[in-house]
């Protein structure tokens, strides 16, 4: 059963359609990436799931049942526009927000201590939020979001504003949360993080869902039979141009590389056979398109 499902969710604002029949399915205990260019409707979808924005048509199902306001209180939600009370002290505020999520004060204190130590921000406890930098405040907000160990976590652009070191810390924690049983949905522009983290993705453009599925399946779907060969020997490979097309050749660390597209009616084994006769092969692998490539290609195709 899916942890979360949206069925033909549609939302119109006064002068444009923000979401047009968007249906996605999020498996339990998986990480689901919501991709799309700016203004595609990602945040609107997230806000509809959180019942912050109402939808015009469609359904949101949580574990197969229509989502209710009480369910929302159990979701860990990190909004795109981060907000904390500026004048309140970090620790006090974290405890307050945790208590609003239904944690007892002592549990909140205990768990906060663990997380503050983990993120090495224990010394901020008595600082006011307005004294923190944007990135620091985001760390606090991330902790507050996950503290009550929700089964469903929704992060809107969780990596924006973080330096690479903190992005990595955050990625590790997101993976940990998944491994501990949580289902995670996040929207992002950070394609590298999508490749590393996501089990499934959905690509939204111009308020429509244009692509969704398991990440390796999508990569395979969009692969174009290109292989990369690393070798010693001849500078130029001699190949039958009817069967193989050399896209590019380059030299790196004393080795030669070629990217070769296999044209119709032949296989990678045939390619390897041809090459083996000419050079000493060091490496041979299929080139899968990066999510970044797929993203750009799909967005351009559908925007046209």
């Amino acid at each position: 059963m899916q942890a979360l499902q949206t069925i033909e969710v549609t939302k119109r604002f006064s002068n444009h359609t923000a979401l047009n029949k968007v249906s996605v399915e999020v498996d339990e205990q998986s990480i689901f990436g919501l991709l799309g260019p700016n203004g595609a409707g990602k945040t609107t979808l997230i806000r509809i799931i959180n019942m912050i924005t109402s939808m015009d048509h469609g359904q949101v199902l949580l574990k197969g049942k229509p989502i209710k306001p009480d369910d929302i209180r159990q979701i860990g939600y990190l909004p795109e526009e981060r907000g904390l009370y500026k004048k309140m002290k970090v620790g006090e505020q974290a405890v307050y927000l945790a208590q609003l999520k239904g944690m007892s004060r002592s549990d909140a204190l205990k768990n906060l201590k663990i997380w503050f130590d983990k993120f090495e921000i224990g010394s901020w406890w008595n600082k006011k939020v307005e004294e923190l930098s944007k990135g620091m405040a985001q760390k606090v907000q991330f902790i507050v979001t996950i503290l009550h160990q929700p089964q469903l976590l929704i992060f809107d652009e969780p990596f924006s504003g973080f330096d690479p070191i903190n992005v990595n810390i955050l990625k590790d924690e997101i993976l940990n949360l998944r491994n501990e049983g949580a289902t995670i949905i996040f929207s992002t522009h950070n394609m590298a993080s999508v490749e590393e983290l996501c089990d499934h993705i959905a690509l939204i453009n111009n308020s429509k869902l244009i692509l969704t599925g398991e990440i390796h399946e999508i990569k395979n779907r969009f692969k174009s039979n290109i292989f990369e060969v690393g070798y010693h020997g001849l500078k130029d490979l001699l190949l039958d141009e009817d069967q193989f097309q050399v896209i590019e050749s380059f030299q790196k660390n004393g080795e030669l590389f070629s990217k070769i597209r296999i044209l119709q009616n032949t296989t990678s084994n045939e390619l390897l056979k041809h090459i083996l006769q000419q050079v000493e092969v060091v490496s041979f692998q299929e080139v899968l398109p990066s999510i970044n490539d797929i993203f750009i290609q799909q967005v351009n195709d559908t925007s046209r």
Partner: protein
Amino acid sequence: MNKILLIIQREYLTRVKKKSFIIMTILGPLLIAAMIILPAMLSELSESSEKKIAVLDETGLFFERFNDQEKIKFYHVYEGLNTEKETALYGEGDLLLYIPITQLSLPVNAQLFSTKQPGLNVTSYVKSVMKKVIEDEKLKAQGIDPEIIKSAKADINLSTIRVEDDGAEKESYTEVEVGIAIFAGIMIYFFIFMFGAQVLKGVMEEKQNRIVEVIISSVKPFQLMMGKIVGIALVGLTQFLLWIFLTGFILIVFQGIVGIEPSSMDMLGQQGQAVGAGQSIDPEQLNMVFDIIGSLNLGAMVLSFIFYFLGGYLLYASLFAAIGGAVDQDADSQQFMLPVSIPLIFAVMMSGVIVNQPDSSLAIWLSMIPFTSPITMMMRIPFGVPVEQIIASGVLLILGFIFTTWLAGKIYRTGILMYGQKVNYAVIWKWLRQR
């Protein structure tokens, strides 16, 4: 713990811990107490000991008329000015009053020598006695016996007596009541606006901060709104009660330390005489003021103040919360603030009319309509209001704030999560009709 309690707790604690709250809480009673104590203290300090005044009266007209006062004693001296200055100032007495003979038929100049600044009550007493003497002399010069004038002077003491429905008679003291009525009305106005504005500010802060999205994922919008309103109401009550207790405390402690006896009230009376120079407030009148304050039943005044503050505050605070939730920018709130504030401002503007005729139909109507009743009713209460009117006004006020809270809840719920929309009355009407 219940979530709404958590919100109330946060709203309350963050505000009462603020420096501005603590400063206001201490400063308020100090100012009020200072207004009561300072005049008494000033005369008390300067007149802390008995003053002996040597009177060198070359005219012989005045001495007999100086009567010993509680803290001012007079004695007659006859030697020359310089000798007496020495003996009086560095010997037996404290001051020397020198009234020289002048060329004019009536002396109008006198000199008061002292090593220290003489108190206001000394100078004013001396002045008033001398004035009286000279007036009498002038009358005599015209051949009129001052006694005749005295007996011709009519002292009208008009006491208005209100006959209650049950036939009981009660003396009413209109002027003091007017003062108290206007003070109470203005205080209500001030409290409603001050704490209503805090609600508006708090809601807008949450919306502009976007923290509201996080909180709305934990609690219902209505809980957040009510938590804030109730939390701030408690802050207002705390401030009000602290003001009352602290003022009382300061007054009592002050009495204990400095030992201002009730007699200092006489002193106040004398001072009033001094300041008023001529248009004498006699001590009896002052006692009367305290009588009235006592007869007003302070307990009932405080209770009705609390009720009308809470009722009026809840009514307006929920509207302010709705405004804060609806708008994005501080500037946008103005167009909605004005119509909401007009009834309050109107009630204050009508205060003159109301205290003049506290039982006029305008006053009765304004004290029934929930939007104006907190101010108007507080202004009427010192004059006595029939019980059934108070009950009716109270019930209407409660119904009124239930209605505005319900209305505000609907606007707030939608508005608080709405960004970037130009909000006008049509939009708000649409939100109201949403189920």
